[in-house]
């Protein structure tokens, strides 16, 4: 439903990210030792599994890039001063969001009001989502990965305008899927994940594009490798209090680690290992390790906390059912072409 606002929203987010970076004083400081998760024992379900259930959001990590800005080097965490400055920005944003009416004569754009999106409630501690490799940079692409990236760019932003056909848009804009990685990385809104557990099962329900992943914990084998799906085939097990999920058999050349599953698409051989650890009553530390040797020259890991927030819940995201954005962009482009052809005919 909100797709027509996406572009504006994306621009806004990029601008916000840029502003945040500038606003944060760059203080040289030795990297903090990675603080060990405090010893906190999660409650157990009646059948004895660690209880991860609830509705969580990754909002606090909105706008934080996959990659760490080069000047930070191996320094993963913001300093206390940096965090204080970032939290001031968050307060200022909240104040702007609370404004109900535009100032007369103010600069009003065509995008939605800020509060339509979701916002961080506190500053992230990390400077990048990526924690492996240590420099916080996505590993270099392989030759095959570079070819796939070039093809992706050509399709999306090169010779063919996306408006020529729905096929020029990403699988997210088409309301098909954001893929396994794209479905967890924080974006402008719809960052909610609900976890439901039963004996032998974990269901992970993501609001955006209404994904519903079923993770079986019964030690059953993966489905046959000739069955490829957008979200892959997941099997899980408990490593102490941590839920470990292994996923493979994704459709290749569809989704990647960019926002909403964009960016260089993974190969069909990609393997994903997720770890979910509840670190306190309201927080799960979420980690995903990506191994896709056909696309990336090394494996990499990204991590962030997802949190329960008061009043935060998932709503049905009937993306395809309400995809007026696609209809409007395509029909708008055809109308533009018709008008241009008509103008050219009259000028002849």
């Amino acid at each position, binding site marked *: 439903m909100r797709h027509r606002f996406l572009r504006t929203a994306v621009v806004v987010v990029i601008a916000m990210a840029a502003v945040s970076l500038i606003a944060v004083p760059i203080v040289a400081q030795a990297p903090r030792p990675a603080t060990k998760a405090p010893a906190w024992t999660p409650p157990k*379900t*009646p*059948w004895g599994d660690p209880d991860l*259930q609830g509705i969580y959001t990754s909002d606090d990590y909105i706008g934080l890039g996959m990659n760490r800005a080069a000047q930070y080097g191996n320094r993963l965490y913001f300093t206390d001063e940096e965090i204080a400055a970032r939290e001031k920005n968050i307060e200022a944003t909240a104040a702007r969001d609370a404004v109900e009416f535009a100032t007369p004569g103010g600069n009003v754009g065509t995008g939605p009001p800020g509060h339509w999106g979701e916002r961080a409630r506190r500053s992230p501690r990390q400077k990048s989502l990526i924690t492996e490799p240590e420099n916080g940079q996505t590993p270099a692409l392989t030759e095959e990965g570079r070819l796939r990236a070039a093809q992706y760019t050509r399709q999306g932003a090169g010779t063919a305008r996306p*408006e*020529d*056909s*729905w*096929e020029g848009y990403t699988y997210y804009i*088409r*309301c*098909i*899927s954001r893929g396994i990685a794209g479905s967890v990385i924080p974006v402008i809104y719809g960052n909610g994940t*609900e976890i*439901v*557990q*039963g*004996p*032998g*099962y*974990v*269901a992970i*329900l993501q609001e955006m*594009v*209404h*994904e*519903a992943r*079923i993770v*079986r*914990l*019964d*030690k*059953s*084998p993966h*489905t046959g490798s000739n*069955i490829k*799906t*957008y*979200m892959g*085939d997941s099997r899980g097990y408990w490593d102490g209090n941590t839920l470990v999920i292994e996923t493979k058999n994704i459709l290749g050349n569809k989704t990647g680690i960019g926002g909403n599953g964009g960016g260089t698409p993974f190969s069909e051989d990609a393997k994903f290992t997720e770890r979910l650890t509840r670190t306190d009553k309201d927080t799960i530390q979420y980690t995903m390790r990506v191994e896709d040797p056909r696309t990336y020259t090394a494996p990499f890991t990204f991590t962030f906390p997802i949190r329960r927030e008061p009043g935060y*819940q*998932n*709503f*049905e995201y*009937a993306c*395809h*059912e309400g995809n007026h954005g*696609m*209809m409007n962009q*395509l*029909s708008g*482009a*055809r109308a533009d*072409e018709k008008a241009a052809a008509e103008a050219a005919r009259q000028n002849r």
Partner: protein
Amino acid sequence: MRHRYLILAATVSAIVLTFSVSMILLAAQGAQTKAPAPAAPAAGRGQAAPAPAATPARGQAAPARGQAAAAAPARPARIAGKPNFNGLWQALTGANWDIQDHSSEPGPFYQLGAILAVPAGQGIVEGNEIPYRPEALEQRKKNRLNRWTADPEIKCYMPGIPRANYMPFPFTIVQGTTTIAFAYEFATANRVVRMTNHQKAPVPSWMGWSNGRWEGDTLVVEVTGNNEQTWFDRSGNFHSDALKVTERFTLRNPDVIDYEATIEDPKTFTKAWKISFPLYRRLERNASQLEFKCVEYTEELIYGHLRKPTN
């Protein structure tokens, strides 16, 4: 004539014999490769291969059968005192074609012959009659005439409740204590049943808002906040946004759920009516919920007229 049968019989026998011999040889080979254990004599008859201990054939064997693989956790019969509905389920009715009794009829494309032709089916409506209001019955007739273009299933729209439960696709129930997730393979449609913290539906939606409770061993789910855009079947049975569905799930045995739903919609029907059918546990080896993201199979239909002309 006789001769033909003889030749046929001989051929069949030859095939069967060849097949049996190959199977025995294969089994023997298997016994050699899989079981090089010292005590593997009489491999000739292919019986030396030890029956694998506790084969995790389904990985979800009910405790009643006592066959669960050692490694796989057994499925508990009850969860916190309530019956355990966890697993992969599917209806086996033809109700997605028509929830009422129906004869067979041709499909939409003669080129596909028997494929997509509609088989006859016994309905799931108790008493078979749906108490439409007169004006609603007119609409239902129109819907039926337009069914090959107007059924929302064509566009891969979320099917709503109750239809999601009897589409020809499986769904998984993940049952905890405070929430129960229903994840349907078709269109990745899903819903979470709230067993506590019941809420009024915050907004109308395709899959509705589900509040659940226990009545003894029966799971009762009230679904409200349904939008008016879903149908009950491919034949045009429909409802309004006043639809309220009250579902009842009762385990008949570990592998069968008796499902019943009461349909109330005073804008469309003169009184409440019921549907009922069994849901069967999918018992195939390693039966898994797959993914049917059908959106991309509908884009040419929905947006095709807006594709940029190539010339």
